[in-house]
């Protein structure tokens, strides 16, 4: 068993040659390391290939471990919130939802309805922006640079929308325990609906450019199939699980923050092309989810109730009473949840955050056996990982 820097690689072929003729060919072991265009961040994958076919891929994470849970235990409640944003910097608002929902349930803090609607609107805008980036990045991995530029055009407008309300482009610290920090103006609502129409109008443009592009289809249809059983065994959630045919969406199954007031469809399973659970389906899944999110945003804006946006009881030095809770919510990349334990002190006693990419990456070693290296890139691009939430 050769272990290279703690990496255990099977050594089948170096065993005694069982071949009729003594032709022992070796295999290439190398790093697809932290600095690589297609690893979407600092993921290191140790590959064993025989030239083209991947015999074994071992992902190694931890290059971006930023001590999020230790910091949450050291700082007060309100101070700890910005660190949760930095877990999934592409869907930062959904990360805040993860922590805030658990704390509110444990401390029984009631959130005014308008604040819940605002949270839904901004989280869905964040999801659309994150999926646009993911779809464009996947096209970039498959060699199509132009769709990335087109999708970034909508993404930039979405970022300015969020920037107007929250003050940040990428990391927002907008959601607080018991509500949100700022209200939205009517002008912003009009701009938001205009943006939704613009994205909806361009959806078929993205599909023609990328999703139904002949080369893209050849590269991704039937490639790197993650079936239902593997996804469940490895704890992969979100678009990966839904593309594998499991109708699991926490916004529908365990509704939180008034999601039950909106009617939207959960796109599931085999879409019009490809095999269930292959890379193309995961890509198509994200684009369909964008359309659903746009529907939610429009309904939430039209039905936005009046009222204040934050709970006056929660001040800067707010402390959660003793108790614990475990609430999960649907982030763009999967299910984020926080096992929150409080002992009544000024800081959470334990805030264990679940990063969906942590579990999505763990299925890489099993599903990548026998793939070509190009298909391994399709697999990694389609499961759409961010290392911030994987290493926390």
């Amino acid at each position, binding site marked *: 068993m050769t272990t290279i820097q703690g990496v255990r690689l099977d050594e089948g072929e170096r065993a005694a040659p069982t071949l009729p003729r003594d032709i022992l060919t070796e295999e290439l072991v190398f790093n697809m390391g932290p600095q690589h265009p297609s690893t979407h961040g600092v993921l290191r994958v140790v590959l064993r290939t025989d030239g083209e076919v991947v015999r074994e891929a071992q992902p190694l994470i931890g290059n971006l471990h930023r001590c999020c849970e230790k910091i949450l235990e050291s700082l007060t409640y309100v101070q700890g919130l910005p660190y949760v944003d930095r877990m999934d910097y592409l869907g930062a608002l959904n990360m805040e939802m993860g922590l805030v929902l658990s704390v509110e349930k444990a401390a029984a803090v009631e959130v005014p309805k308008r604040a819940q609607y605002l949270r839904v609107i901004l989280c869905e805008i964040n999801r659309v922006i994150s999926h646009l980036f993911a779809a464009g990045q996947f096209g970039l991995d498959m060699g199509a640079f132009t769709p990335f530029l087109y999708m970034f055009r909508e993404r930039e407008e979405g970022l300015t929308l969020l920037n107007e309300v929250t003050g940040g482009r990428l990391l927002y610290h907008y959601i607080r325990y018991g509500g949100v920090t700022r209200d939205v103006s009517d002008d912003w609502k009009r701009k938001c609906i205009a943006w939704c129409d613009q994205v909806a109008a361009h959806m078929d443009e993205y599909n023609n450019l990328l999703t139904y592009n002949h080369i893209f289809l050849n590269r991704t249809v039937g490639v790197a199939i993650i079936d239902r059983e593997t996804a469940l065994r490895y*704890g992969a959630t979100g678009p990966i699980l839904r593309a594998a045919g499991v109708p699991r969406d926490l916004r529908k199954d365990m509704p939180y923050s008034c999601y039950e007031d909106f009617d939207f469809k959960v796109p599931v399973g085999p879409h019009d092309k490809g095999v269930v659970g292959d890379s193309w389906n995961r890509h198509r899944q994200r684009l369909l989810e964008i359309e659903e999110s746009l529907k939610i945003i429009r309904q939430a804006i039209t039905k936005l109730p009046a009222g204040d946006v934050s709970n006056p009881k929660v001040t800067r030095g707010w402390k959660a009473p003793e108790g614990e809770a475990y609430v999960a919510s649907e982030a763009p990349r999967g299910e984020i949840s926080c096992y929150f334990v409080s002992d009544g002190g000024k800081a959470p006693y334990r805030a264990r955050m679940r990063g969906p990419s942590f579990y999505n990456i763990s299925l890489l070693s099993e599903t990548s056996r026998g793939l070509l290296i190009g298909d391994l890139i399709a697999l990694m691009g389609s499961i759409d990982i961010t290392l911030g939430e994987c290493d926390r």
Partner: protein
Amino acid sequence: MTPAEALRSALPDAVEEATDAFVRVKAEKVVEAARVLREKCGAEMLHQISGVDRPPDKMEVVYHFARLKPAAFLCLKVSVPRSNPVVPTLANEWASANWGERETWDLLGIRFSGHPHPYRILLPEDWEGHPLRKDYAYPVEYHGVDCVE
């Protein structure tokens, strides 16, 4: 069938404490308990493994299983002595436990006996100490790069 009843009927001696939120089980029976949750209570996915450091004498490992239909989370708790925290591993049946347990060992120092790959996962291999313990002393220097200004 709620986890508490299922576990009381299947493993009467293993259950130490059972409320509607969680079930506390003896450390060595955690593998059977997980199997009971899978068969009787419909737990299809191991959603999250969390370690909690309870000084001065106890450490807890909290498993959250996800049930898809009807969607719910089933919580299983195991408490082990802080001096020698060892819990049998679930990694052989629940693949998501593999990395979850490696991270719990890495950050909290709870050993999982029978784990196929008991290495640190987030911190470098030669990192001393387990950061999420309450009595963790921050390092001063690591490989020549000083940690505090």
